[in-house]
């Protein structure tokens, strides 16, 4: 299987704090890697580096074989769902799809397909700022998939949203992976570990990989131990 993401000795320092400390990881095509960690563990920092949003202190990162420090061309293979509401608040749902499709140089035919698949027909005229969490997250995923990305980077893809939206999003994620897409999903809710192929547990700037079942067992054990601590309220 082709390696889509290759990270070697990645270090990110913000001020005096070392957020990521010499991370090395590989993600192959068709794989869904869950990045699990507590609040402040560096999940978002890692995802923003992989998406080419933030610079990093040292190390090497390749996406689809492209060194992301040399060029931004890898972004044509990328779809991003952010933890924060990052769609354009001044536009409605349909305008967001149109605008982001234009920014990504994506074909307009994808828009109709994604509206249908993510069942966005009824919210197209809603201003993004007033959308409920579930439809908003479906829209955010649709926007991320507009350019048929090879790599989907999703930060808290499913948070506190309605079950209907959750089901649609998980269904779309399965379809995406089945089609050869790769996903890196930052999650703070251990419940979603069963939807990923591998869990990268991020703690104190270091990452350790587990199969989902083992990661879940370790998490439950930690919760039950006297020194156990929750992450982000969910984890």
């Amino acid at each position, binding site marked *: 299987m082709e390696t889509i993401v290759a990270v070697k000795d990645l270090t990110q320092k913000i001020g005096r704090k070392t957020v990521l400390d010499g991370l090395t990881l590989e993600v192959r095509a068709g794989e869904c890697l869950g990045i699990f960690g507590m609040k402040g563990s560096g999940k978002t920092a890692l995802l923003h580096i992989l998406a080419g949003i933030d610079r990093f202190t040292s190390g090497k990162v390749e996406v689809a074989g492209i060194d992301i420090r040399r060029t931004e061309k*890898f972004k044509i293979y990328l779809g991003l769902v952010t933890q924060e509401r990052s*769609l354009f608040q*001044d536009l409605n749902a349909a*305008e967001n799809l149109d*605008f982001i499709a*234009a920014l990504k140089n994506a074909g307009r035919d994808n828009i109709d397909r994604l509206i249908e698949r993510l069942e966005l027909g009824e919210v197209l005229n809603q201003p993004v700022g007033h959308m409920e969490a579930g439809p908003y997250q479906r829209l955010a995923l649709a926007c991320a998939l507009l350019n048929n990305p090879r790599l989907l980077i999703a930060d808290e893809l499913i948070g506190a949203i309605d079950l209907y939206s959750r089901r649609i999003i998980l269904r779309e994620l399965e379809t995406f992976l089945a089609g050869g897409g790769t996903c890196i999903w930052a999650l703070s809710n251990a419940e979603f570990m069963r939807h990923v192929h591998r869990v990268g547990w991020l703690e104190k700037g270091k990452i350790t990989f587990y199969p989902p079942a083992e990661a879940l067992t370790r998490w439950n054990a930690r919760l039950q131990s006297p020194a156990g601590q929750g992450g982000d309220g969910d984890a």
Partner: protein
Amino acid sequence: MLRQCLAIMRREVFYLWRDRGLRHILLFGSLLGLMLFYAVYSAQVLKDIPTAVFDLDNSAASRELVDKIGKAEYLKLVASTASYDDLRELIKQGKAVVGVVIPENYGRNLALGRQARVLAVIDGSNMIYATNASAALLTVTRTLSAQAGVSALVARGVQLQQAKDAYQAIDISEEAWFNPALNYAYFLVLALALNIWQQCCTLAACLNVIGERGMKSWLQIRACGISKFRFFASKSIAQIFIFMAVVLPLYILGFGALKLPLNCSWAALLLFTLAFAIAVHSIGTLASSFARNAVDAARFGMIIALPSFVLSGYTWPLEAMPVYLQKVAWILPQTWFFQGINYFAFKNAGWNLMAHYILAMLAIAAVCYGAAAVFIARS
């Protein structure tokens, strides 16, 4: 690429249009300013300047002087006081701007052909009033002085015509070109309205970069891989287009409805204004590129936009400013614009001069955009 650029431009127009506050300021701010300033300067020239007289002589000659002051075109006799203190009180209270004190023996001195002194007091606290009052008073006193001189020569046996000729040896005829009536409205109204426009434009441009980077949607833009240059260039084109769209009704109202003088062609005026819009936008973009947040950017905008009109030399000649300040003033595009608008709208000073002004503004724009590009690339 074109589709990307057009989408960014369209979104920028929508963004500005949907921000009701910004839309109203851009659309109506300068138009309201134009109407307001036109109403303020509707008198066009200052007439009926309130004048008080303290006549210590009370002779026929002094009464004639008082009568002439009362009939002067721009002066209005409002009081005749009984003491110098009363006159001072009237001026202090703003009931008179000009005070004329006619001393004792004024009539006798005139009759004897001696020099007669008259004290003219002007309230200097309001410069506009004082300058006009001084000019109006000078017109009266010059005529009277000439008449007295002619009378004195006649009393010494000179023929009347010879005496008149002696006082008219140099016939100076005054002509005010380009604004014959020295109309304040022509001079100030459009410039003041354009000042509001340029301030609004500067403030809007100050949000060009930081306004985008400060929003969460910046993450989407960064993740899309579109180059910052293409993104901000497209945004900037849309903003400059909006600036021009906003100034157009201002010009139509000013030159069309209010009949302010426009002696150059519309095309030349719009080209000149476009160069200024680009330059002002570049300054705002530069401020926006290194500002830490939108509030910071707005502060930079205010610091640039507010004093720039005063520095432009429109209301006080550049040549009268200290040399170092003149050098600073010429760095600002506002100076080139407000100096130039006078040259071209009033005087149609010609393409050569206009090209010089346009090139200067575009050079400022090139420097500011270049510096902004460096800041944006490093951020």
